[in-house]
């Protein structure tokens, strides 16, 4: 059937209703001077039309449930249905955040146990669950760094060192907290350039923000030396835990020497990505920083769970206690996997990535040689030189083959980058089919490059004019 591309607002017919409210004997008394001048321009639709409209939009979306989604750095793994059922229990969804500790013992138990489990997994002494997403956790953690040095009256520490391969949220978060961002280059092997780091680190260093494994999918094998340099300079070690899915049960940020870490429950712990959120970005830290964590802690004393203030907390970064239902899903996930399962997750995430990387060679070469962790980065620079077909063209062509493209043009230090993260929940044959599609496109780039430049052709729209969108922004429906 042909699908329309009308907005719900364009399907509105005056007088139509979708649901009705109870008839109330009470009448509101609104002073005239306070009334809005005309009703809000919301759609008036029948229920069947509402249902069809959003069902049709759902069909124009691609989730992990639709097909392979190797979006690097985002860990698009399967989101178990069991966790959805747990998060839909009325005992959790119908609880008011201010109904008091005695009436919320179940929710507090979840927060308490999840924080302990996550601290265990990342080798830290304490975890807060308040931040709503990874970048939010970074913000909270950097604020802890700022407060930590302020309390020590060590005010010269104004700089945060960030590798040139880092996620954009790292420098942006550091700048939000008033730090000066100092980039450190990567070496020929794709890891932190040790000489450059040693030259940069000094008495003005507040922290190094490091993703390990890094965004190239490589384990920073000099991690111990990096820690020595930063701690030696008096700075703190911050771990961007976006890539934790590679290392659970194998090594822990805390044991590596990191002082702080943020995790992404919507990546490593299988909570669904929701078309862009909600996520959850817990922050873990070592004991000497624990009193600085954002939000209250949950304690278990005398058989009862309760909130307790942290002495030097940087404050609340969000109202209430975090994205509770997201936390709940992650808790169900950890219970289901157990310690052995968590290790199995990481080992197979790494195996799947290496297997896919191997299958893609020699046509697609990884940007750095060697074993990768849970993801790898391809550079299509050669292909582009030879055929004119870019990383974006290959990505768009994958769409016609039912595959969500990898992350494009990131990290910034790799030209024509495609960052591929298959995750552990994909089967061997899915990886083989994806590799076949990649290889078919490689051949096509030489025999019929136009086919790639034109792609995609099987989607509801063809390539969109993004320049026009930014030049003349149309950001809402104008009746």
């Amino acid at each position, binding site marked *: 059937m042909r699908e329309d591309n009308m907005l719900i607002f364009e399907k509105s017919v005056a007088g139509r209703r979708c649901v009705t409210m109870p008839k109330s004997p009470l009448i509101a008394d609104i002073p005239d001077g306070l009334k809005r001048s005309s009703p809000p321009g919301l759609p008036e639709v029948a229920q069947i039309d509402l249902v069809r409209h959003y069902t049709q939009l759902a069909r124009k979306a691609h989730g992990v449930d639709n097909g392979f989604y190797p979006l690097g750095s985002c860990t698009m793994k399967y989101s178990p249905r069991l966790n959805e059922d747990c998060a839909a229990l009325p005992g959790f969804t119908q609880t008011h955040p201010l109904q008091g500790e005695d*009436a919320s013992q179940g929710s507090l138990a979840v927060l308490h146990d999840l924080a302990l*489990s996550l601290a265990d997994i990342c080798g830290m002494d304490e975890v807060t669950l308040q931040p709503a997403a990874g970048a*939010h956790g970074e913000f909270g953690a950097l604020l802890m760094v700022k407060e930590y040095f302020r309390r020590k009256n060590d005010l010269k520490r104004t700089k945060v060192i960030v590798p040139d391969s880092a996620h954009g949220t790292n*420098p942006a978060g550091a700048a939000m907290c008033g730090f000066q961002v100092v980039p450190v280059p990567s070496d020929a092997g794709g890891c932190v350039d040790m000489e450059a780091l040693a030259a940069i680190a000094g008495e003005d260093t507040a922290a190094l923000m490091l993703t390990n494994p890094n965004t190239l999918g490589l384990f920073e094998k000099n991690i111990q030396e990096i820690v020595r340099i930063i701690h030696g300079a008096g700075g703190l070690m911050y771990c961007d835990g976006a890539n934790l899915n590679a290392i659970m049960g194998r090594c822990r940020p805390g044991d590596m020497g990191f002082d702080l870490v943020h995790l992404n429950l919507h990546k490593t712990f299988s909570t669904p*990505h929701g078309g862009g959120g909600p996520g959850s970005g817990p922050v873990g830290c070592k004991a000497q920083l624990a009193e600085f964590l954002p939000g209250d802690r949950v304690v278990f004393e005398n058989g009862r769970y309760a909130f307790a203030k942290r002495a030097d907390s940087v404050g609340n970064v969000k109202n209430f206690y975090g994205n509770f239902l997201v936390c709940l899903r992650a808790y169900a996930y950890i219970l289901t996997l157990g310690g052995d399962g968590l290790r199995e997750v990481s080992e197979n995430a790494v195996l799947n990535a290496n297997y896919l990387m191997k299958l893609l060679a020699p046509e697609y070469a990884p940007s750095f040689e060697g074993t990768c962790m849970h993801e790898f980065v391809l550079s299509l620079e050669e292909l582009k030189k030879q055929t004119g077909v870019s990383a974006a063209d290959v990505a768009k062509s994958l769409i016609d083959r039912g595959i969500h493209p990898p992350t494009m043009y990131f990290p910034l230090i790799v030209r024509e980058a495609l960052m591929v993260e298959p995750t552990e929940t994909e089967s061997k044959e899915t990886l083989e089919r994806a590799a076949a599609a990649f290889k078919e496109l490689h051949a096509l780039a030489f025999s019929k490059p136009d086919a790639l430049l034109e792609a995609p052709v099987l989607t509801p729209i063809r390539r969109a004019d993004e320049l*026009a969108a930014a030049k003349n922004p149309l950001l809402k429906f104008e009746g």
Partner: protein
Amino acid sequence: MSYVPSTAREREQMLKAVGAAGYDDLYKDVPPEIAFRGDYSHIAKEGLSEFEVKDRLGELAARNRNYAAIFRGAGAYRHHIPSCVPHLAMRSEFVTAYTPYQAEISQGVLQAIFEYQTTICALTGMDASNASVYDGATAAAEGISMCLEKNRRSAVVSQTANPGVLSVIKTYCKAMDAELILCPEKNGVTDLEALASLVNENTACVYAQTPNFYGIVEDGEAIARIAHAAKARFIAGVNPISLALFKTPGEYGADIAVGDGQPLGIPLSFGGPYLGFMSCRKDMVRKLPGRIIGQTVDKEGKRAFVLTLQAREQHIRREKALSNICTNQALCALAATVYCAALGPQGLYEVACQSMANAAYLKEQLEAAGFAPAFPGVVFHEFVTQCPTDSAKVLAALDSNGILGGLPIDGNRILWCATEVNTKDQIDHLIRIVRSVIPHA
């Protein structure tokens, strides 16, 4: 259970194909001194079966109280959520997608967020909206961030705002090295004289919430006048349901409108996930943080939706970005969009009217029972009363009858809330219980 599909045999084949004798070979870059070989202290070695997990979580859910009636708001509100809202928002294509970077394969998510932006602008009377931030409190804080300039580093914030929102504003101001100046209240509303004296050439913005924490509708026009006289911005914190009835931030001259979208079809959920909405006037669009969706055309001229104005964002601007937000609350924004479309202008009007009428009736009945209103002023669906007896005693009596009463606040006062689900019968029942614990009532 790890949800890993490959069998032991397949794993062997794959290991062999990549030239590894075992998993240890894949982790050879991890220095042995930092390898984790122990067991966890708080996680069982073996996982539980699906049945066991469900059972455990069910037990925990049962340890929360579920109240038959809730008369508590203070930033989280129980409204009726039409059945079609979760059914549509929880479609697995939406649930398991991520940020719509690839427009061609993400039109459904992109169009839904475009509809969300249109909905928020319709409610607030503003020109542009982003695709959501974490919650109403972070929306307020990000709003302040939008207004800060080199020589305007202070935010004047009314003390009548929700204390939870105030605490987050405080945290963000500290991070951004912005000065936070609290404007005192008078009779439960922002003290306008004090406000006028606090706003000056260093003021980046004024933030005030209406209806405020005490439920009272603030004089938005007066606040806008005071802010604008000093060339400062006015950020209005609003309850989206109230906007079906009351003057919009656009109408009273606010520059930015923010708030928590939870009342729009999101369950209470012990505080999250909710969504923060942010909308503003045209001249501030390029200062909005986070994702924004725009309409454009594809190469064949067909209508298309894309992520736009990305030059504001962290993945492009890095340390020069306005905010580091990446993941937002997209699925909650979708639910809010479907909720508003399901209710339509008439339905939302009825929800707002009934909430207001029920609250007015509750207030009147409580007053008759000896609970004097703490403040004058027009309220929407919340209000504060002075308690004629120990407020803990009143709330305990309600609690033992399955009713969550209002929120106790300082000075033996209670902040009550009623919405369209708190019917007259429910209120009459509450009043009977309340009267039974008041001496001589």
